[in-house]
């Protein structure tokens, strides 16, 4: 993992201030969605080698959930955005 994460609210901060929550590309299915969709949402996770998009919470800072796009191989952080803004902007 990168040493620093650039929080859109707090600026570049040490990774120790953040807590990872997991894959940010999974969208919570509708209540009536299929068993398969719910199973995938709750249990199935990819472990990609390369670009990965995750939720990280800035627990030691603004406490916002962030969508962090990073490369698991090179440890580069490619982009960071506020999760609520991403969700409301319709992009994941």
């Amino acid at each position, binding site marked *: 993992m990168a*040493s*620093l994460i650039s929080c859109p609210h707090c600026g570049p901060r040490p990774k120790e201030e953040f807590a990872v929550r997991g894959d940010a590309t999974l969208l919570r299915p509708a*209540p009536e969605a299929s068993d398969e969709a719910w199973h995938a949402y*709750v249990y199935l996770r990819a472990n990609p080698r390369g670009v990965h998009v995750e939720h990280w919470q800035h627990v030691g800072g603004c406490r*916002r959930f962030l969508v962090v796009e990073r490369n698991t191989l090179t*440890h580069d952080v490619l982009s960071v955005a506020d999760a609520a803004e991403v969700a409301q902007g319709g992009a994941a």
Partner: protein
Amino acid sequence: MSAHRLLTGGLIDRGKPLSFTFDGRRHSGFAGDTLASALLADGVSLMGRSFKYHRPRGVMTAGSAEPNALVTVGGGTRREPNLRATMVELHETLTAVSQNRWPSLATDFGALNDRLSALLSAGFYYKTFMWPSAFWEKLYEPLIRRAAGLGRATLKRDPDAYEKAWAFCDLLVIGAGPAGLMAALTAGRAGLRVILADEDFRLGGWLLSETRLIDGRPAHDFAAILVEELAALPNVTLLPRSTVFGWYDDNVFGAVERVQKHLPIPSDKQPVERIWRIVAKRALMATGAEERPLVFGGNDRPGVMMAGAALTYAARYGVAVGKRVAVVTASDSGRQTAAALARRGVEVVALIDARTASAQASPMPEGARTLTGAHVVDTLGRLSVEGLVTVRAGFEERLDCDAVAMAGGWNPRVHLACQHGAKPVWSDVHQAFLPPDVGPDFQAAGAAAGLSTLAEALGDGVRKATAVVADLGRSAPTVPLPEIDAEEAASGAAASPVWLMPGARSKAFVDFQNDVHAGDLALALREGFGHAEHAKRYTTNAMATDQGKLSGVNASGLLAAMKGLSPAEVGITTYRPFYTPVSFGALAGTARDEEAVPHRLSPLDGWAKAQGAMFVEAGLWHRPAYFPRPGEKDWRASVDREVRTVRAAVGLCDVSTLGKIELFGPDAAEFLNRLYCNPMLRLPVGKARYGLMLREDGMVFDDGTVSRLGHQHYLITTTTAMAAKVMSHLEHAAQVLWPALQVRFASVSEQWAQMSLAGPKARQVLQAVVEDDLSAEAVPPLAAQAVTLRGGLRGRLFRISFSGELAYELAVPAGHGRAVAEAIMAAGRAHGICPYGLEALNVLRIEKGHVTHAELDGRTTPDDVGLGHMLARQKPDFIGKRLSERYGLTAADRGQLVGLVPVDRQRMIRAGAHLLREGAKPSTLNDQGHVTSACYSPTLGHPIALALLKSGRERLGERVLVWDRLHKEEFLAEVVSPVFVDPDNRKIEPKEPA
């Protein structure tokens, strides 16, 4: 005793003598000395014993690569083992002792290992101590560790302080030698924020050992002038005594600064060591080069050392390492060093050059013989070298000398650049491993980049820094390069290294600290461990505290030669942080004691202490467990009395540690309705409701209360343990799942002191403190409202009962907590009030069948714990709804909450015990469930327990076997309702006034 102090010269202050002891003997040195230079000056050449064979060893280097001269410095609480004498700055009253010897350095019984060395070959431990395998951990390893050891750390508490700090810069320059100083100056003059870090206590690197003039003045004066200018620049930070030990992601570097390790008694106003995390836009690795030892028979005899080190001792410390020094080399660098040694007044008696044709031979000092095409096959002497055996063209010759300087060429210090997985690159031109290209942010400069002359290094520092300055959008000043007196010719193509001098008559060592010799590497290759990484593990080469700074490249070269390959094909083992050892104290920084594990104290802590509470740690919290009274012989007596008092009269308990989150907004109700599995939309203002939160997988996450304080204003409580997780859960839901909901919330856990007043007399006692009417009509069960205390303080009152008694939870601003608790105690005295702690609270709730995280352990559903009726399936959605409907979570044979009463009423049930059918064979294969909570019930007068039992609710009245294998217990218990006391909830609101 042939090493001695020269009459003149050296960067030591001869006006400041310092006295110190080594192995109890008094010595003296000067300010500016290291422990190693002062010992050499006093004629001490024997400084340690090797790890495995206990061979006598002397100092080999003058820097951080030192494998042999490991000492323990200081005493008592400040005893520090395994320090390199070459890095210990001398101070008055310093005490040092040698290691890994008994009874003394000169007479070490462990040296018997050396005689037995034929039996102790590489892989010996693996081959010999394999059987029986159980013996390894208990017998073999401790024995081996005792025999082959380093120094011992003190077990006493470290009295000193450590800290960590962040630093930010445009350019980090690692190493303050010729390239580093010029780079820092170039960037500093251009206005960049520069940090210049060097592991030495004096900045200058090789310039401090250089014997030629630069710009007409001594090289160390030239260095001092540069350092002076740098120190005056406000944008430049100098970090001497600071080792950059690691290169991490985002060009963040780790460094350890030894702030006060050189002082006899450190000040308590400063840390002794400081870890820096340096965020550098660009960095230059100006770490220089490490001289390569030559591998020949007897090359570990004390007095044999690196040629560059011998020169450093002469030039920087004014110490001649011997009276008759022989220089052994396979390169021009050895010849140059021999000449420089002579210039410094050290007598060089012979130059043994393995090369036959050394055309561009430097002029040799007078009286020195030159033997070309010669090899050293052995050294003479015991505790120090007394001569060499050389072979030239088949003829053997003995050479008299008392010190041997080895010059096997130079290895660029590439470690930092290789810590991200990139491998050093073998260069046939340089005959050395060069740093890999790791991009523009981190570049090597000077000798670390493979440059071999002083002029090249100085120029490279300017050039690389100029590029950084331009890259960062500044204009670089012109930094003129100095004139060097009698510059050496650029060596051009390096001669092929001599990895092993043929014909060794005794062990030819590769790794000095771990006692790996050339024969061990050959054995590793023969036995199939010829890969560089395998050979390392098989022989332990490069695995000692010096991490192979001298041995790594030689091992690679030897393996390559034996395989008939180029070192490029063999490669080199992986470099990882730390470059040199870092103390645990520095790594811990301030994180110890309460700084590491803070004590969270309730606002009522002072009150509880005054009440004589015994405390228990619950996570970070220190919570009152019980309040003993005189005459109570054990904790149970106190807890039983507290429970009886609550059931019969009234008790006061601190519940401030519960998590409290306050929510506002038009969508707060909808938000909570989606978080809890039970309905929340129609909770009236002024009411509280018990709530269960599920995880998305359908298991219970946490429980607590939801109170509606206003139309769009809620307060929820969480369990103490889950407070932070629930907060994060809410934040995730609000920000990620449903960002459109208009709700805002904040943790108010720390803002309120909260106390539970429980028992039949609770209302009378509380009414004495609260102005508002507390009648059952005004404050019915599950009321949640603001109240005014007598005296005007505003608080919040909740009619919530965990004990099953008439109970209130009163919350007041934290700062008023103690005063309010004391007022309640005073009001309750006439009613027989007592404080009660966590233990009594637990007994009260078990008696009442209320669950905690002992039952809600992440594997239970609401139905498992008897709360299935709370699941509001008519709600369109809530977290956990969909997966809670799965078959596996609704199956009839799941564990269900039941009560247990031992058939023999004297038997205490223990939590964790298994439940089996009566008569079943005790085995986990027959498992029917387990005990989750157990206690003695003073109300019923016998032990009780809560348990999760398969289909338990259908099995009331059945007898089950309670099996606790750990405590070797098996006895019968009867399955009963989990509500042991007041199943009809009559006590919550007694009919007649108490």
